[in-house]
């Protein structure tokens, strides 16, 4: 378990974090696919075939989910500190429109390891996971809990699933196409320095002890010089 850091790179996510992330991701996708088979008649036949038939899908779904809940619980403990909500996050939300419309080249200087959007996504998934777990137990053992609780659990379970699905799609987009250079943070574990001063300037300042704006300006000047030389 190690992370190779090339020249000009910073460690973003150590191996333990990455392993947890992909454990969560694998269990999430398995739960999602097996769950959607049971969710609606239109997906029942195509998706249940992936898991060796419908009875097997039903048998495996709660165990996939249990794996997801356990891996996510460990990730919550792992990320409790960087995911803590601060007053800077309230400021960031006011700047959300500029973020979405890509109006500014660099993120505000106060953005640390995670921005408020990432924190919101994380805590939405955490809350949905709790709703999932609490509503899923009566669905797993219906005769122990009675009809009414199961019927309510059924709706809550689905609402949590839809919330997660929206978040999941946005998460994949943000982690890949929307921000080039981000995906390698969760594969190799490192990011380029210029990625760090662009998206998480306060974190860059903390780990390098350097000024993110000054380093950006310097890089920009060097690039301009190199261009004029050529």
């Amino acid at each position, binding site marked *: 378990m190690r992370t190779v850091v090339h020249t*000009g790179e910073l460690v973003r996510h150590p191996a333990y974090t990455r392993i947890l992330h992909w454990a969560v991701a694998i269990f999430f996708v398995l739960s999602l696919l097996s769950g959607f088979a049971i969710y609606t008649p239109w997906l*029942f036949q195509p998706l249940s075939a992936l898991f060796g038939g419908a*009875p097997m899908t039903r048998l495996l779904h709660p165990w996939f989910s249990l794996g997801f809940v356990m891996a996510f619980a460990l990730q919550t403990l792992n990320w409790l500190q960087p995911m803590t909500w601060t007053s800077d996050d309230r400021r960031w939300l006011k700047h959300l429109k500029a973020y979405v419309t*890509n109006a500014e080249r660099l993120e505000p200087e106060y953005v640390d390891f995670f921005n408020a959007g990432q924190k919101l996504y994380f805590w939405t998934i955490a809350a949905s996971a709790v709703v999932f777990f609490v509503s899923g137990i009566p669905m797993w053992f219906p005769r122990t809990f009675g009809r009414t609780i199961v019927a309510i659990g059924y709706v809550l379970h689905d609402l949590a699933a839809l919330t997660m699905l*929206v978040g999941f*799609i946005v998460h994949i987009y943000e982690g890949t196409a*929307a921000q080039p250079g981000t995906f390698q943070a969760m594969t190799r574990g490192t990011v380029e320095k*210029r990625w760090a001063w662009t*998206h998480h300037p306060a974190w860059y300042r903390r780990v390098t002890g350097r000024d993110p704006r000054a380093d950006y300006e310097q890089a920009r000047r060097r*690039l301009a010089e190199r261009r004029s030389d050529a």
Partner: protein
Amino acid sequence: MPPGVLQIKAMSGHAGTVPGRGVQREEEVCKYIDVTTCIGCKACEVACVEWNDMPFQQTSFDNTYQTMPSTAWNYWNLIKFNEHQHDDGTLQWLMRKDQCMHCEDPGCLRACPADGAIVQYTNGIVDFQQENCIGCQYCVSGCPFDIPKFNGATKKVYKCTLCSDRVGQGLEPACIKSCPTGCLKFGTKTDMRAIADKRAQQLREHSGFPNAGVYDPPSVHGTHVIYVLHDITHPERYGGLPANPQIPVTYTFWKRVAKPIGLLMALAAAPIAFFHYITEGPKEAQPPDSGLPQ
């Protein structure tokens, strides 16, 4: 084979009308249970277990005549014995044959997510197809009568079939055949309802049961098993027969309407993300080239 398919339509060299024409007036069947003439002999319980070739297992004794506390995956037909004490101190011994009610609007079928695991025949019989059952037990919470029972070994749910195998061959269900008092009858829904109404009227007018009536709950659009009760205002006295059986709304509106809409709304995040990329573009690390200061 659906009834009526082998009904003779025309006959060569035959004078007069075709024999048997119009015999099948109505397709919907019904089981009639008159609890007022049931003697609690349990012949129907034995007939059910025998016909369906069910293994018997240990049960628990709860100081009543009842065979077991509730129906089981391998025990679909159970007489429930209840001693009811009236306000004036008199005692009434109530016996009710408990089994699947074969609702016209079955909660189990609405709740079930598995393709073809529960079917409803045109004659009203609601039947479980175990080969398609995935063992999720949604039917258990969908049923207002607590009828579907899960077998942990086979991971499938079972219940009374109204002897669909016998009825399909023109025979009456096994329980009906075994009843010695005639408190069980089998026929078309219209006929059974008419007999039940007549019997309830008789009880009201001649037998001192002013509240006698027929249990055929409209909240599930009627059932294909109907009861004649001494007191229709208190069905719950007969071993917990619900006065107003309900299917949770989640199994109707939520499943058929809200679920597909919700799924489409959630999946809409994908095209939104795509068009965000097309219109706003990616957020590049700055400066957007490999001009690294090293």
